[in-house]
């Protein structure tokens, strides 16, 4: 029997509706789960995404033909019913529910079961027959602390730096993580200083109504002394770049789920690492899979083989799927994706 969602070489494909989800090659119609670069790519004739993704997608993809939906809102195409549901990953991130002739599939995209609700809507557990799950952190060593605990640690770190007259650089992906940090640390400083990449995303999100603490973009005219004792948020690519060189003295820290591993922490070559992720941890993934009630599971980007095996052992029809979402096997590459 043909699958309701096929894994084609262009992306996730729904044949009866002729619609793709997060395609990586140009197609006619694409539903985009979220605005991260590896899920939201150039070259589609028509895009459809959650309304909160619209500004950032336009910022990154330019003048695209884009329609939007709210969470829970649905539309029908050739008898296939589509709707978007909160994925908790970043602002506007969605799971795509696809229903056809009584069969329900959910493509989870990237998701986080414990998001910061100041930034994005809480994760919704959507019942389905078949669930397509990510597996970025699908190993039992990945267990997140409570965000408050992490933010307390970052605040202490900042207080120490401030006392020593150092600039606190926090490296975080510019879409999602950066805003989460600002929300988590609001009140810690009157104004954040941001790298242009972060600042542009902030502006795009503010325009669509996200309430973020104020930030000032760092420019050529910014003097190192202006930043003394302040918090700067910059994308990971800024670490070790010439951009950062003139800002001294500084203390650098990387904020990511990967910081859970000593190896990746050392690899980053920063002074500190804080473990905070926009992806579900091991327990979060398991809870999501269970709560969907799905009998069949497809596992995409991350530890696909291991995670599919884990669920096969526990009686699900679970398979690993090869996609083109970067960071296959969860490599902590430079992309915006894996935070």
């Amino acid at each position, binding site marked *: 029997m043909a699958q309701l969602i096929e894994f084609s070489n262009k992306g996730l494909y729904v044949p009866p509706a002729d619609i793709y989800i997060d395609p990586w090659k140009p197609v006619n119609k694409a539903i985009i789960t979220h605005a991260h670069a590896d899920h939201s790519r150039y070259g589609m004739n028509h895009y459809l995404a959650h309304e909160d993704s619209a500004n950032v997608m336009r910022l990154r993809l330019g003048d695209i033909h884009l329609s939007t939906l709210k969470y829970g809102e649905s539309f029908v195409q050739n008898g296939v019913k589509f709707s978007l549901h909160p994925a908790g990953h970043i602002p506007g991130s969605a799971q795509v529910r696809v229903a056809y002739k009584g069969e329900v599939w959910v493509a989870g995209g990237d998701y986080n079961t414990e998001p910061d609700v100041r930034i994005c809507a809480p994760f919704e557990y959507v019942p389905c027959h078949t669930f397509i799950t990510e597996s970025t952190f699908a190993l039992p*060593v990945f267990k997140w602390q409570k965000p408050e605990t992490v933010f307390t640690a970052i605040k202490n770190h900042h207080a120490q730096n401030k006392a020593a007259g150092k600039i606190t650089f926090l490296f975080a992906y510019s879409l999602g993580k950066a805003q989460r940090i600002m929300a988590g640390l609001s009140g810690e400083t009157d104004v954040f200083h941001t790298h242009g990449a972060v600042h542009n995303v902030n502006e795009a999100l503010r325009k669509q109504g996200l309430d973020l603490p104020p930030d000032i973009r760092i420019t050529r005219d910014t003097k190192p002394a202006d930043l003394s004792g302040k918090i700067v948020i910059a994308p990971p690519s800024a670490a070790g770049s010439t951009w950062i060189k003139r800002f001294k003295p500084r203390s650098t820290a990387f904020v990511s789920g990967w910081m859970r591993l000593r190896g990746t922490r050392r690899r980053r070559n920063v002074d500190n690492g804080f473990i905070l992720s926009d992806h579900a941890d091991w327990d979060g993934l398991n809870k999501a899979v269970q709560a969907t009630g799905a009998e069949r599971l497809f596992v995409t980007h991350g530890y696909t083989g291991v995670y599919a095996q884990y669920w096969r052992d526990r009686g699900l029809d679970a398979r690993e799927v090869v996609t083109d979402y970067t960071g296959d*096997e969860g490599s902590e590459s430079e992309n915006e994706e894996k935070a």
Partner: protein
Amino acid sequence: MKHFTRLFTQLDATTKTNERIEALRIYFDSASPSDKIWTIALFSGNRPKKPVNSKQLRQWAAELAQLPLWLFEETYHVVGDLAETMSLIVPENTAKNDVSLSTVMCELVELRSKSDDEKRHYVTKRWSEFNSNERFVFNKLLTGGFRMGVSRKLTVKGLSLHTGIDENTLSHRLMGNPDPLTTTFEKLILSPDDDENLSRPYPFYLAYPLEEEIGLLGKPADWSAEYKWDGIRGQMIARGGRIYLWSRGEELVTDRYPEFEGLENLLPEGVVIDGEILAFAAGKPLDFAKLQKRIGRKKAGKKLLKEVPVVLMCYDILEYEGRDLRSEPFAVRRKLLEKIVTDCDSSQLLLSPVIPFEAWSELKPLRENARTLKTEGLMIKHQNGVYKTGRKRGEWWKWKADPYTADAVMIYAQRGHGRRANLYSDYTFAVWKGDDLVPFAKAYSGLTDKEMKQVDRFVKQNTLEKFGPVRSVNPEMVFEIAFEGIVESNRHKSGIAVRFPRIKRIRHDKEPKEADTLERLKNLIRVKA
């Protein structure tokens, strides 16, 4: 453990030498003498034998975390560190407790002789008491893989600030694997009794690789040249009517080399000689691969002793008549060494010949030719140089012969460990045998992080098959592989074994077809012989 774990966390968080030394000082200032001596021992690589085997540990950790063993193993492979995997995977701590490092170490010493049930009970109890950082340190102590990048030099600097004793004196006091079960901080560091330390070696002076043009060293007359012997570093001590032989790893290896028995009667009392333990027969060095058979063996059998006899190729003297000579100029020490080795007249003690030269240009062909003499290149030492501690620039240079190289095709890739978990960073390379590619070397070092990411991407996009952490890939990428030695080997499919293979560069300009043949590599062995 909280105190020691805090030290560990601080050392782990910074790569700045001064901050690390300061962390050590602060730790030593407030630690108990028994914790101090254990810390010194651990940082010197001296730790009790593993009390529990790692298979048991993995099982207990998996059971405690309620996970199947295969999942534990897969996870371990990604994390790359067993102690870390266990500390992250077992449930968060329930009990609160603090015990000192020395208490834990004594428990671990005793644990070895306990029953499996007792071991399991003890380990899981401690796991449940510690937080994840303490658990990590505890696991490192359990699995024996304790390194944390604290060198002897760093320990000595921290201790020196703490005690006010100068670094050289401390380095010497720390030599020779102090055992916390038989000595104390007071006895070892503060007021050592020299008679008790007859076997104690001096810290080795290690040469720096010469990378600049040799002419820049200055006047040839100020320098002395020798071959760089391809064995293992050794220090022979004749004191109290006995002989002690130390390896560079500060292991006492006297019993492994019965060849040196009887030298206590030939060498004068109170002599320490620095040299190379070398496989040597019929007036010539043997391949390092031969010596390797002896290195791991606690007791060599008759056959092996005959097949691989060893000598000490002597090149320096550090003590004479019980007097420390290290601050004498090299030329003076060398004269004395020549006299002693000659007087001794033993076929087990050879004098590393000085190579006479008047111009630097005379040395160049000798270096290029060094491999045919089964040496690694040349050593260049300053005539006035004192014998320093550790690896220091300026007066001892090693001028290695260029490595062998071969162009080879990557055929397998494996995920790395530790720092490289998540990246395909360990590769297997092959050369042509007719139309087949035969694997001949594995290498993981030599690439920049950027290149490694590039190769990682290639591997993921060119996978033919996966088996566990290994992938076979399209044989398309060519690499230049450098290696130090090559010998015949019937344990390898290719029939050859290479030493210290590493990646020299990626050959984007080469097609797989242009890679080297096995025939050419086998020829290298013939040329060498």
